[in-house]
């Protein structure tokens, strides 16, 4: 255990615990757009930046990303110091120049009093803020289907050679975690399309409702030993079946 001060309050944390988790535990709200508990911290968005100092630093201060900075004895943290607010404002101003269409960016910027960017608009900007949460989650799921390509201005998230990614199983995790809803997919009838790849959706034998993709189910059966017939029904049909089975047992009980 180490002792820290967050916004004037004395708190304890596990040594090595990231500051963001300490701050969240205190229910202090700071933006942490590129953070997700399913993956390692990455420090891409910089929005979780906080001010740190120590008594022995003689007034020196540092600005660090809370998601990547481990707790250590004697740290004095300020999550909303004027310099931190300024920094966050500049970042949001820049994000607004690139991704003005992203609702989350607009909302966060508005919270910090910015409604329009003061920078020149990025001519071919889009809603991707390049936080790489999608690629990291895809890696954590074990698929490695997408990655970031190119550098600088041309950087973007894409499948290899920008072709339908062979390793994608259509689980949609990337789209689900995307903070700006940039990743598009389409479910139409029994077909799902994402990253330019088409998937067949399994459908429930009773209700006919689509569930997950054939490829994803096969992966789960193969890698995680889930019997393939578990995937033949949707959850509602499974529930009804369980009710009938338990109902029969209950009936025997009544007759006993």
């Amino acid at each position, binding site marked *: 255990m180490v002792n820290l001060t967050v916004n004037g309050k004395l708190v304890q944390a596990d040594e090595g615990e990231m500051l963001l988790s300490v701050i969240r535990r205190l229910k202090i709200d700071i933006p942490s757009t590129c953070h997700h508990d399913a993956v390692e911290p990455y420090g891409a968005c910089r929005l979780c930046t906080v001010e740190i100092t120590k008594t022995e630093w003689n007034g020196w201060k540092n600005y660090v990303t809370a998601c990547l900075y481990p707790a250590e004895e004697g740290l004095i943290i300020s999550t909303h110091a004027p310099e931190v607010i300024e920094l966050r404002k500049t970042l949001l101003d820049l994000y607004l120049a690139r991704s003005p269409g992203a609702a989350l960016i607009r909302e966060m910027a508005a919270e910090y009093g910015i409604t329009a960017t003061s920078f020149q608009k990025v001519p071919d900007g889009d809603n991707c803020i390049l936080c790489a949460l999608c690629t990291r989650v895809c890696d954590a799921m074990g698929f490695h289907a997408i990655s970031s390509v190119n550098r600088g201005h041309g950087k973007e998230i894409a499948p290899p050679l920008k072709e339908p990614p062979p390793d994608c199983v259509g689980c949609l995790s990337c789209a689900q975690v995307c903070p700006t809803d940039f990743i598009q997919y389409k479910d139409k009838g029994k077909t799902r399309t994402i990253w330019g790849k088409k998937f067949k959706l399994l459908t429930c034998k009773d209700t006919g409702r689509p569930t997950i993709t054939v490829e994803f189910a096969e992966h789960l059966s193969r890698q995680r030993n889930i019997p393939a017939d578990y995937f033949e029904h949707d959850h509602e049909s499974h529930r009804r079946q369980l009710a009938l089975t338990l*109902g029969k047992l209950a009936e025997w009980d009544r007759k006993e």
Partner: protein
Amino acid sequence: MDKRFVVTPNLCTGCRTCELACAFSHSVNGKPGLSRIYPLSAGTDEAWVPVVCLQCENAACVKACLVDAIARNPETGALELDYDRCVRCMACVAACPFGCSLPDDQHSLVVKCDLCGGEPVCAMFCPTKALAHQEICSSDRKSA
């Protein structure tokens, strides 16, 4: 674990009080959540079964989760889903052979019974004691 969540279908009248209790105790941002429990017809008229997660020993949802978001709470025995870890891939929803991981489309979440952290609220409100949270001796069966 000396207390168990016990379901006795023969006592269930299908009143759906459990459903209300669950939805309200799992509210999201002040709005009722999706109920993790609800009574379903047991096949014959008047026979109901409150269907809820069985907290399986070797659970398919746990095996299916590729980011380890579902884990047993050693204190309550419940398999709890960590919302901050979940990536909503729907693997657990598809894999559970009892249909007890549920997609809450309204709040873009996957939900399952967490035994309310040890004191199931549905059992507190069940008027007929079809759902009960009680001390259990090892010879008792039908425990869920």
